[in-house]
């Protein structure tokens, strides 16, 4: 890519992809912004053809003013935080375990990764009906076996249940990335630490964990992006009831259940802002691990 000629040829070749990607991103974004400043209630006869009424920031104030807004932000952050903690901690432990030489390693690794291949809708339904159902669920049987009253998971402990379901889906991803990171650790470093008098707990703390820091950063960043937008799991389990209404679920309700496109669009802009705030925080905390 040295000569003038090859550089301009490269630009020409890349142009279609860049234009397509930009369009893909910019058109929905600008339409969301456009609708968020309009009154747009399709059931009341509003349509693009009739021209939409400009309402300024009314949608924005109404969206924040709703009693559902702050609880939804809280629910979103709780789910994201809970799932991140569970997947990273268990992911590190599972990766350590899977890194041990054992019989049937290949099969076990595939089994561990398996949940990631199950669609979110399906896995949430499986959890809801097979495990968490208060009368027929496996967990209910377990509770009865020990002589206690079964828990109605999705209504009594709705947020923890959702966190459990989503963690189950994302744990393989975390484990996989952390496992490859552990495998790249130089064995001589561990041996050196052993000779230096570090018992296994300290070897983990001073050698393995710092080595994993970059992989953990990547797991946290990627998962956060996806977890901020989880929807299917909530839709098929609680339907947003019992305090599980996340920001993305609230937007869905405003647009499709209340048929208020303008209000939903304003919510969408808030979701973008929230995602950016979270991203900036994460970058501040863990981003420095990506340097060097």
């Amino acid at each position, binding site marked *: 890519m040295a000569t003038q000629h090859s550089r301009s040829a490269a630009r020409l070749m890349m142009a279609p992809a860049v234009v397509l990607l930009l369009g893909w991103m910019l058109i929905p974004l600008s339409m969301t912004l456009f609708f968020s400043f309009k009154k747009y209630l399709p059931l009341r006869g509003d349509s693009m053809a009739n021209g939409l009424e400009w309402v300024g920031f009314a949608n924005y104030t109404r969206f924040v003013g709703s009693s559902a807004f702050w609880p939804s932000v809280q629910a979103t952050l709780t789910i994201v935080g809970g799932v991140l903690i569970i997947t990273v901690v268990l992911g590190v432990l599972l990766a350590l375990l899977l890194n041990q030489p054992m019989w049937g390693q290949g099969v076990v690794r595939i089994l561990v990764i398996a949940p990631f291949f199950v669609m979110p809708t399906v896995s949430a339904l499986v959890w809801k009906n097979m495990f968490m159902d208060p009368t027929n669920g496996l967990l209910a049987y377990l509770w009865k076996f020990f002589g206690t009253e079964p828990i109605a998971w999705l209504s009594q402990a709705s947020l923890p249940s959702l966190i459990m379901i989503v963690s189950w889906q994302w744990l393989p991803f975390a484990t996989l990335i952390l496992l490859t990171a552990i495998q790249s650790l*130089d064995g001589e*470093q561990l041996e*050196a630490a052993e*000779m230096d*008098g*570090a018992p296994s707990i300290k070897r983990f703390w*001073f050698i393995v964990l*710092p080595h994993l820091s970059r992989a953990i950063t990547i797991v946290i960043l990627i998962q956060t992006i996806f977890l901020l937008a989880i929807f299917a799991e909530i839709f098929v389990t609680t339907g947003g009831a019992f305090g599980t209404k996340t920001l993305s679920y609230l937007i869905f309700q405003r647009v499709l259940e209340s048929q208020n496109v303008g209000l939903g669009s304003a919510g969408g802009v808030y979701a973008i802002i929230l995602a950016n705030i979270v991203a900036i925080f994460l970058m501040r905390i863990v981003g420095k691990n990506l340097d*060097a």
Partner: protein
Amino acid sequence: MGQIQLNQVTKSFGDVQVIPPLDLTIEDGEFTVFVGPSGCGKSTLLRLIAGLEDITSGHIAIDGTDATDVPPAKRGLAMVFQSYALYPHMSVRKNIAFPMRMAGIDQAEQNRRIDAAAKALNLTDYLDRRPGQLSGGQRQRVAIGRAIVREPAAFLFDEPLSNLDAALRVGMRLEISEMHERLKTTMIYVTHDQVEAMTMADKIVVLRAGIVEQVGSPLELYQRPGNTFVAGFIGSPKMNLIEGPEAAKHDAATIGIRPEHIDISETEGTWQGTVGVSEHLGSDTFFHIQSGLSAEPLTVRAGGERKLKYGTEVFLTPQIEHLHRFDQHGLRIA
């Protein structure tokens, strides 16, 4: 203090025995080098001494006390690894401090030892850098520093210079020898490079397939190799080994003669040959001479000024008093 004794030590990986029963004593303060071709078990032997591998049978004693089942950290040995094994996320200071931190030595003493080690190893200006910002030689020094501050009973080096370029290697070789003179601590050094072994060792242990072929001082090994393997392995360029009728004339199955013990002449001599490639090193010249005596050409050392054209017919005369004789099992005769 640091006398290390191996008693009937064996090591097997599954069904494969890599170290057959082996006895070896390393005296306190000695610089011992394990040398041998790759895969001869020298690194395994070092790791057995370090405790990083469990021995299959036998006993290891350090300073007279049995250390067979003592974990590596408690053996009082420090090891320098081939890859240096520095902790990449810690500064040089923290790397060097790590073993002391694990041992719970107080901060003032830690700093004193770090500063002393840094000064001895020319690392004072680099204490706050990360290993990734250092050159190969500096990393090597950090690894040595990390070993020194523990004040171990013995140092174990696992091919520490093999990742350095040739010039640095010569420098580090001198530094390690210097350090040994200063500290007078037992050192065990593993290498496949017989030059390192010859230049640094008090005692060389030549290994082949886990078996100790010969133990002795560098000059002993050079002057009186116990068998054909040691004869061929120690010394650079290699000793010329000749089998067949020429050896039989000297009542041996194999005779060996070092390149410097053959006189070369264009007019007369015992053996006849043709000059092949000549290597001019300035101080010496090595001629590779094709003769009917052995499949490989004979190597002959001559003075630096000596010049012989490719293809010249020459005569060679071995110095009989420097001839090594070996029997049909490869063992030295007298």
